[in-house]
């Protein structure tokens, strides 16, 4: 990998937000907001320039300290990482704009919560670092940067529910990190390298590798709230402040998924069996049904949205069984790999946009009403039509109706499912969609219903509503560059690849 063109963008993408976060610590509440917002805009601009660079030059790397792996650490932006960084930048900048106005409104009663901006920039840097990293241990450190700053953001409001949910989240995050790190230790012990690209070449199947795969998957599943480790997500995401919920749900959980995807596809190919893919697919399927059903049963808006995240993350896990080929099938003959990958990427991006918009809208409603019980959404359409529209559009994208990004994801997923002949996943996808439609339209029905009690809607800055709406529209617009996006991704080595399990069975996998 060291022969690729080098560029200083990877270093800047991590360094700049941290520099700005550090800088912002020197200011008071107002100054931090200014530095924070400026930092967000700068980071977004930098991310976009970096992506442009990748489209021009292909995968670029940065060898930190000039030490080649395996001793040193290598950062790389390949198209897959670029897409994630782009998603982070686009959604992140909207959330930053929202936060800017949000905290200005809340300034009176909270003092503006000065920790938000530095923590958010640290989180951003951590996510960038996570997407860029090509080193197993470095991934652990970035996971921790992301994890601690995410929990810290989640407890910002200082309310008891937020603190309790935050502690649960934090303990889950630490447990997940440690499990991940144990796997890293075993891998390092058995290969003497931490570099992902090198590992892909030297890792041998065996009991140790299988166990490392198990604990790493376990740890990352805990971190991304995959079923059955989803318990921490709904309370943590629903108790946080609106911009925080948005970025936790839309962005942070995707980090663990990204690592899982990379490691499964690039490192653990030798140790994976067809059954492993099916197993994680089942976890995803249960999450889809269970999460959607739970969302359907909730009575407060943020809890609905939070449970919906569990379900939407389940769809991501359902991509894995398609990527691991049945015995006898080769990568060349498997024509569903490209749709399956597209489904995964589109699910990530469209969920990021739609969920961010949903949580931001929920924040607006809480700001207007003082609470988020859904009965009070009555006549939302009359009172706040922009927010109602944002919720409607974001909901449509979550359901997966055309022509949203969610539709693209579900279409490609179903197509992959049919092409691969694993038809048993299809009912799950459809049931999930129907249940999602159930809770989204439950909200919309209330939004159109006549007001019953006199819930007074306090005025909320229009700019907040517009940001939420723009994100919702974004979840539709992302369909249009699909062709370009897929072409771009196809130039990355990992996109469109599948795993051909070497053999079946063994004691608990390949031995």
């Amino acid at each position: 990998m060291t022969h690729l063109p080098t560029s200083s963008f990877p270093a800047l993408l991590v360094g700049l937000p941290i520099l700005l976060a550090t800088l912002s610590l020197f200011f008071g509440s107002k100054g931090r907001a200014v530095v924070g917002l400026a930092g967000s805009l700068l980071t977004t601009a930098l991310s976009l320039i970096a992506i442009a660079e990748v489209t021009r030059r292909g995968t670029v790397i940065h060898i930190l300290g000039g030490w080649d792996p395996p001793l040193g650490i290598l950062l790389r932006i390949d198209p897959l990482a670029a897409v994630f960084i782009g998603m982070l930048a686009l959604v992140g900048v909207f959330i930053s704009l929202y936060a800017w106005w949000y905290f200005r409104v809340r300034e009176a009663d909270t003092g503006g919560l000065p920790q938000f901006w530095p923590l958010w920039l640290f989180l951003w840097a951590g996510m960038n670092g996570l997407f860029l990293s090509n080193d197993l241990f470095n991934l652990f450190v970035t996971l921790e940067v992301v994890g601690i700053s995410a929990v810290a953001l989640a407890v910002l409001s200082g309310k008891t529910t937020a603190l309790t949910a935050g502690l649960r989240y934090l303990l889950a995050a630490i447990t997940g990190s440690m499990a991940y790190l144990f796997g890293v230790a075993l891998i390092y012990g058995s290969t003497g390298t931490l570099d992902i690209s090198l590992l892909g070449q030297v890792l041998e199947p065996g009991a140790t590798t299988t166990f490392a795969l198990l604990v790493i998957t376990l740890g990352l599943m805990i971190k991304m709230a995959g079923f059955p480790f989803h318990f921490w997500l709904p309370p943590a995401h629903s108790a946080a402040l609106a911009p925080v919920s948005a970025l936790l749900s839309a962005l942070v959980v995707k980090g663990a998924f990204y690592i899982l995807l990379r490691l499964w596809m690039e490192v653990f190919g030798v140790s994976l069996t067809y059954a492993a893919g099916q197993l994680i697919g089942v976890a995803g399927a249960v999450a889809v049904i269970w999460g959607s059903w739970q969302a359907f049963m909730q009575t407060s808006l943020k809890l609905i949205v939070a449970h919906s995240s569990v379900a939407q993350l389940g769809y991501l896990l359902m991509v894995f069984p398609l990527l691991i080929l049945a015995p006898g099938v080769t990568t060349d003959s498997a024509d569903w790999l490209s749709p399956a990958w597209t489904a995964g990427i589109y699910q990530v991006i469209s969920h990021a946009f739609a969920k961010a918009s949903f949580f931001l809208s929920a924040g607006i409603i809480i700001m207007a009403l003082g609470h988020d019980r859904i009965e009070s959404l009555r006549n939302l359409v009359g009172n706040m039509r922009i927010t109602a529209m944002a919720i409607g559009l974001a909901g449509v994208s979550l359901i997966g109706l055309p022509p949203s990004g969610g539709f693209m994801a579900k279409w490609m997923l179903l197509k992959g499912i049919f092409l691969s002949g694993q038809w048993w996943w299809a009912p799950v996808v459809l049931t999930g969609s129907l249940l999602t439609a159930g809770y989204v339209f439950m909200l919309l029905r209330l939004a159109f219903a006549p007001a019953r009690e006199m819930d007074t809607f306090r005025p909320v800055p229009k700019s907040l509503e517009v940001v939420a709406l723009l994100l919702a529209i974004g979840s539709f617009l992302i369909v249009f560059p699909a062709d370009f996006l897929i072409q771009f991704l196809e130039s990355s080595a990992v996109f469109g690849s599948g795993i051909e399990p070497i053999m079946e069975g063994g004691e608990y996998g390949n031995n």
Partner: protein
Amino acid sequence: METTSILPLLILVSSLIPGILILLLKEEQVGLRTFLNLFGAVAKVSLIAWVFAGYLRGEEYTFFFSLALDLTFSLRVDQLGLFFAALSAVLWLVTTLYAIGYLEGGMHRRRFFAFFSLCVTASTGIALSGNVLTFFIFYEFLTLSTYPLVVHRGTDKAVEAGRTYLWYTIGGGTILFLGVVGLFVLAGPIYFGQTEIIASLISDYPTQLTILFFLLLTGLAVKAAIFPLHGWLPVSMVAPAPVSALLHAVAVVKAGAFGIVRLVYDVYGVGVAEKMNYLNVLAAFAAFTIIYGSVRALFQDDFKKRLAFSTVSQLSYIALGVAIPGVLTSTGAIVHLVHQGIMKITMFFAAGNVAETYGYKNISQLNGIGRRMPLTMGAFTIAAFGMIGLPPVAGFISKWYLGLGAVEAGSYWVVLVLLASSALNAAYFLPIVYRAWFYEPEYEVSRLRQSGRLEAQALLLIPVVVTGLLSLAAGVFAASAGSPLSIAREIAEKLYMLL
């Protein structure tokens, strides 16, 4: 592929842009809103006329936009599509006028007109879509843009109706989705008219293709209100009259019926559908729905509900026509697409006029209404005669062709169904006509309306008269060139020539 043309897209944009702009306007900007609306409607009709003229000259209009991999957004002009698009566009223009009058001073008019425009965009999109994917996109878009119109009144009843509507249509949409993806996987991106693809695959994948056909059919049958998936249609009659008129007589339900036509003729092909016995199943369901809808209509006192069940029944004529192979039945089915639209919209306008002017919603209140609203009820009477199938109104033509075709195909039972249905039609429409014209009014006229004007106001009246006359004209001038019948016949002949 052929060169792309922006014209089909413009036809869509002519209602999409006004819709979005109206959403951004303020509630009070009535003038600008009306202008946008009418401008869009007129532009749409003119564009379709332009394209029609070009099409007759032999020009091809297609528009492509590749989304991803083999997902292509495609608009294509063919005769069948244009036929349906023209119907939607003309009736949109008429209904817009009607709605402006009907909703004067009402609530949320901005929302209403915006979504109304979006609905029409969706139904023209369905008409002009060139492949299955595009059709599906607009089909779902139609569902979504109709929802705010169904719950427009915002009452609990309306919201409940909205819920029923959504469960049916989203459920149908999901099944359709499954079918569409399955079709994609098996047969690739199918463009309408490429029946040879399925024909070549049917021997290899008979089971899968059969399952897919019925998945697709079920998804479409929801909107076409074929028994037992018709439940949403009578419920959603709580919507304002223009909505019921355009959407539940034309745009939404016809989208389903049109979809069935496309499915049988342009995707699977009549040959395959007949060989695999799909058509018999469809015919059975359609025939049953015809009778069932009529019987249910008989027992409705709510004016609009009776019309709604009548719609359920009448829509299945189209399905039935599709299900009996033959040029004549196809002609009947396609022409009924238009004829039923014109007649039913007339009836809904009339019902709306009565409700708006006098507040009567039930048939039992209509005693002598014809004396006060002669023009409205005159138009209604014409349409009712048409529905029953009396010559020379449009409905007669469709029924005639359907019956003739059935005899030619040897399906004599269809004739029986048609006769029975006509008798039932008569049984539920004639009492209204009779009551309106020959009963004594129950109340003093002056007490009912202070303004002194007995007939509905002009904006409400003109559309109903126009559509009433149109339904008469479509029957009387059926034989002349350019009439719906002649176009339908041309389409049907082309379809069978291809075989």
